């Protein structure tokens, strides 16, 4: 196992956003994180990425407790693509490459990433002039370039055109093959079913179920949508 979460709890004032959450994500595995609005998906991501301090619980990577330097281990791509308005697409890649002190071959990898997202024509366009989808692609390309072993994606398909969505799906499959541990939070159940090796369903901050699609189907009847609605009824 690579990423392991144990007893994770986060409260905001009197409200418990996530409650005693435990799960693991192996290297080379894609885990779909599902749940209704307010279930605690984004809070879970924030805790994993070090943007929120859990009230209890531990987060480990390869057995090592993740501390404040987790930026080299975990990266998050949020739903809102917040890029630097005055840096070009290419400069975003330069920024990440130098910040993370990437090796000399990063430029070729960066070019390849832009080519995959059909963004070579936009490489010298500043963030302010990009459409929402292009910003999303820029952020994904820059984050993937950083090459962190754990990647968290919050609704990554929103804003992407069909070609971009296909490229992202293929890219995620490649990252999985390369040994990256991936978690995808989404409301698009078809997308989660197609991408994920395993599904985790949260409701009211608690883990409701965790398993492969086949395991879920063995215990519950119907489509993933039926299973999801059944599990999150209350």
């Amino acid at each position, binding site marked *: 196992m690579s990423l392991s979460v144990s007893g994770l709890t*986060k409260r*905001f*004032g009197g409200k418990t956003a996530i409650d005693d959450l435990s799960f693991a994500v192996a290297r080379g595995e894609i885990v779909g994180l599902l749940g209704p609005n307010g279930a605690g998906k*984004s*809070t879970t991501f*924030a805790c994993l*990425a*070090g*943007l*929120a*301090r859990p009230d209890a619980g531990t987060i480990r990577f390869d057995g090592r407790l993740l501390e*404040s*330097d*987790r*930026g*080299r281990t975990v*990266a*998050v*791509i*949020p*739903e*809102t693509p*917040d*890029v*630097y*308005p*005055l*840096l*070009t697409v*290419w*400069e*975003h890649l*330069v*920024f*990440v*490459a*130098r*910040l*993370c*002190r990437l090796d000399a071959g990063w430029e070729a990898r960066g070019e390849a990433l832009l080519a995959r997202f059909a963004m070579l024509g*936009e490489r*010298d*366009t*500043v*963030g*302010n*002039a990009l459409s929402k989808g292009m910003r999303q692609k820029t*952020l994904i390309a*820059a*984050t993937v370039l*950083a090459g*962190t072993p754990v990647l968290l994606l*919050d609704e990554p398909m929103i804003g992407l055109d069909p070609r971009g969505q296909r490229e992202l799906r293929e890219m995620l499959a490649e990252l999985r093959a390369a040994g990256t541990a991936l978690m995808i939070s989404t409301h698009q159940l078809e997308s989660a079913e197609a991408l994920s090796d395993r599904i985790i369903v949260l409701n009211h901050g608690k883990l409701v179920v965790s398993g492969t699609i086949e395991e879920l189907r063995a215990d519950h009847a119907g489509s993933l949508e039926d299973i999801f609605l059944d599990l999150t009824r209350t």
Partner: protein
Amino acid sequence: MTTLGALFYADVRSLVNQLREIRRAPGRSVVWVLFVLFVAGLIGFRIYNASHRAHFGRHIVAGAGMLDLMACFAIALLGAALAFGGRYAGLFAHPAEARFIIDSPAQPFVATLYVQVRQIVRGSARQALGLLYMAVIYLPQTLPAASLVRDLVLIGVAFAFIAAVPLARQLLSPRLAPFAFAAGAACLAAAVAVALRAGASALSTTVPAAGALARHLPAWHPGAIFTAGAPGGDATIAAMLVCTGALFAYVAQRARDAYPELYELSMKRLARVERLRARSFGLAARAPQTPVHRTAAAGPAPAGVAIFIWRAWTEYRRTNSVRATSIETATCLIAGYAVARIAQVTRPEMLVTFASSVLNIAFIIAVMRSATLATELRRPLFWLSGATLFERLCALGLAQSWRLIGWLVLGGIGLAAGGASAPVVVAALIVAPCGAALALAIGYASYALLPYEADQRGPLLFVRLLLGYVLIVPPIVAGIAIAALERITLTGLIAASVIALLEAGVLLGFASWRLDRMSISLR
């Protein structure tokens, strides 16, 4: 419930919910209570001072025509608003409100009038506090309390009037636009005349030419209606209230037919405000909307957190031409040189007044840079790499303040060229940049203490001021003590700089510790 009732309900509930949020956190409640006490204390102190006619040592400033200059500033604002409208003119606070009002069956006149009045009241709350602070510092301390209140009301109404102009100006018929432009140009010319006269009067005793200029410039100016005193004050307040009401009514009357324009203006304003919040540093930060050639990028990118400085430099180059940079550089150098030359022929208190004003402005600019910290923290790329938050904040601080530090250093070089004494030059070259770093760190630390938006409109200002004035004492005291002990001014200045830097480091450490424990939203 009518539309007006619904708008009022939404505003009241927002306020109540904000108060509830504050009450939930004991720390925030304490800061808010302290803030309210601070404001009450400010008013009480001023009234006590006025009733006892206590000497506060600020008559030099008042005597140097500060009121004239303030009136001049107001006239210049009015002139600019009349001539050009205003880039920040807008009616609706956010898109949802616009859709709600436009789609509702409400009388556009009533709804628009309400929104305008609310915008002015909301917008003026922070300015009112600023005015109160200015009144304590700058207005003559012998002014009776009643006159002080009248003056503050007068200034508040004047700014409300000026704030109401841009939106009405934007909706003005094109046929009338030239008249508005002419009126605006006249106001700007009057403001320049007032500024010239005030400057010339201040220098008249030491520079003969300035005295001659002061004698030739007319004594009366449009701003005199602000500074004429009590007899004219009430009439002026009434007149400006009528004018403000007329402007509001004009916009409200045109609202139904002008909803598309009003919506567009409001969205543009929101986009500008967002850009202003997000920009790294600079006065002109409109991003180019066309592709940028790679040659326009900055030079080689450094590794690690120093990349934040590279990013600031790239953004600066992207938004500033070589000509603008040359003008900026020359202005700083000439200003330093001019100050050094003027200081040789004028009274020392003039120089002290000028220097303290410049340092105050530099302090405010540096502290306000922290306003962009929230935007930085929301960006996921900020959090990549294994660098600690302290390292990131240090690099970000340097990235956000290098331009201000550059201005101060250039000013110092100008001072040296103008023949200023060694301690003054050292103060500009070393002490002022260290002070700027301290001010920025104060901004970060106070943001980390009160990161909520509601707090930033209230007690954050108080915390910044408090921290600023408390933390500036140790470097000054240590500097003076060491200079007195060693009998070398230079040693004292360097000691003050070192202590300011140490304080900045501690504050950045506190900010990173506190931010590390907070939940940061990426939305």
